């Protein structure tokens, strides 16, 4: 067996996500009245990037066999904070951005501490912390409002050289600066190992706790970048529980489409990015085919249901029924 076959097997989820995205996006573009113009690409990129950031945040936690139900609340909290501090001159704005990222990482770190040292199940622990984060967001912004440095906002949601959407470049930068170093480092491998088999990882002397902690913290950080990005879109902050729960649920959907195993230990943030973009493209398909917008939620739901059922095809290969119970 050659190396590329191992690589292919490891990246299968990511490649499937890429294929789904490519297919959906091609159908979308070929039926779009304007075709593939830079403006169409920019809109699609901006919508996808926001979900992609939250999905990456979710991926980091899911890799450790956990789940972060507070990711939407972190997004909303950092959105509210960003609408207060990311203003003024260049220096103040920079400080504001750093502060927002710090708060996001802090939220993630809190989740990590409760899960690792409190030994609570991630699903219930993050329900609790999610309520706390959302409560703080409500205190900061009881009513929608606020403002943001518009030059920065327009730059981040605009185009570079009039062609490439800035949001895609930012996503690429995050992959290069955060994701790739993480997953090739010992700590990142420990996060994968902890998700794959915590006992085996412990026996092999992997730094499980540090790996998990890093995953949760980076997850919070990425969610806060999502919060910043949401602020750049809307030029304001809003403590909306609908936004929080929608993005939490969509992040799980995007992660699943992106080929990340919810049982942990398998998948990559790059797959989650494609999953997020594919999910957005599916939603946009409705518009180019002139369906009533009312049908969009149903269409998205059915596609999601079909997509997750495809994973069940693996059952046909099972020789021993006991393997059903994994």
């Amino acid at each position, binding site marked *: 067996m050659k190396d590329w076959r191992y690589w292919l097997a490891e990246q299968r989820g990511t490649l499937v996500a890429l294929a789904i995205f490519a297919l959906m996006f091609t159908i979308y573009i070929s039926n779009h009245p304007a075709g593939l113009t830079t403006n169409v690409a920019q809109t699609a990129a901006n919508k996808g990037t926001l979900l992609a950031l939250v999905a990456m945040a979710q991926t980091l936690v899911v890799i450790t066999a956990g*789940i972060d139900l507070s990711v939407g609340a972190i997004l909303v909290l950092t959105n509210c904070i960003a609408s207060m501090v990311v203003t003024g001159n260049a220096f103040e704005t920079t400080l504001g951005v750093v502060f927002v990222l710090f708060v996001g990482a802090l939220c993630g770190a809190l989740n990590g501490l*409760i899960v690792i040292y*409190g*030994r*609570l*199940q991630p*699903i*219930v*622990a993050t*329900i*609790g*912390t*999610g*309520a*706390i*984060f*959302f*409560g*703080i*967001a*409500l*205190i900061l912004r*009881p009513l929608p409002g606020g403002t943001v440095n518009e030059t920065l906002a327009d730059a981040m949601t605009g185009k570079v050289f009039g062609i490439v959407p800035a949001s895609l470049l930012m996503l690429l930068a995050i992959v290069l600066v955060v994701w790739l170093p993480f997953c090739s480092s010992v700590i990142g491998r420990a996060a994968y190992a902890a998700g794959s088999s*915590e*006992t085996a990882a*412990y026996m092999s002397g992997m730094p499980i706790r540090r790996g998990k902690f890093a995953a949760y913290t980076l997850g919070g950080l990425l969610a806060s970048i999502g919060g910043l990005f949401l602020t750049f879109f809307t030029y304001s902050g809003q403590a909306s*529980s*609908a936004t929080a*729960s929608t993005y939490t*649920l969509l992040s*799980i*959907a995007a992660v*699943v489409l992106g080929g990340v195993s*919810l*049982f942990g230990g398998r998948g990559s943030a790059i797959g989650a990015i494609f999953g997020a973009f594919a999910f957005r493209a599916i939603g946009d398909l409705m518009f180019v085919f002139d369906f009533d917008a*009312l*049908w*969009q*939620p*149903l*269409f*998205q*739901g*059915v596609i*999601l*249901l079909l997509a*997750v*059922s495809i*994973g*069940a095809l693996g*059952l046909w290969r099972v020789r021993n*029924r*006991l393997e*059903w*119970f*994994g």
Partner: protein
Amino acid sequence: MSDTTMGRISERMPRFIRRIEPPVAISFACIILLLLFGGLYSSAFLSADYLLQQLKVASFLGVIATGMMLVILLGQIDLSVPWVVAAGAMMACAATAYGPAATLAAVPIGILCGMLIGLVNGIGVAYLRIPSMIVTLATNAVAQGLMVVYTGGFSPRDFATEEMRYLATGSLIPGVPNALIIWAIVGAGMVFVLTRTTFGRAVYGIGNRERAAYLSGVNTRRVVMIAFIAAGGLSAFGGVLLAGYASKAAQGMGDAYLLPAIAAVVLGGTSILGGRGSYLGTVAGVILITLLLSILSVLQMPEAGRQIIYGVVIIAMLLLYGRSPANQ
């Protein structure tokens, strides 16, 4: 306090108290503490009227949490609660448009819709072996889509039938709300199923180790599917009652019930990994959460503070008794 002192103390207690698990005891202790604390603020908190009113409000969450508990005992989770609740309520209200016979059958129609969604969940989890978190998320999206198409994106204009309103707000026995009686019946049924039937034992068995249950001859897939159908039906029934209480159905009416239902079950000592937990604990969890939210709102705590305290209480109580064992 070490285990031995705990053991020595509990030996002196009557047998029926000894059988109560610590989480259940702690939850009930917290309920009493909350009531005492509220009583210091105003004696109205200890009046029978207020307590009955709270129990009535709690019974909607109680019915929904009953279904959630069944699923959690299996080691699964049901994230489709929000739109199953809404779908049950909307379909029951919609039945009024199809003549008197359908109006009479409004409640069963609503429950049936929930059971159908539960059936899809059950098939996905039990036979297709898709993780429950994903299947129920997807069916939630489908149910939402169906309801949005059906209602045209607005809250439906149909009103709840007389029967639904009577179930939710009337009182058959003077002074005791019907909703509470319904919760008691549902709860009694659940206790019977869990403790006195092979199905109940199979649920605990699967929650502990599905592979072992399968090898012991349990038809695990059918048990899991039936549990999801029951959970869907109970969620929808909760929705029907809510619609009767508010006298109509609304778009986002189920959103506020997913996380409290999970929290109530888990606070009551049921392990989120499945296989362990008693219904008494779920009752305690439901009452605890309802009382907590109610007292905070009577104290005119703003929504923000309520959310924060709610989150802190969940985490603090779970840190008390919900921790996984320390050994690796």
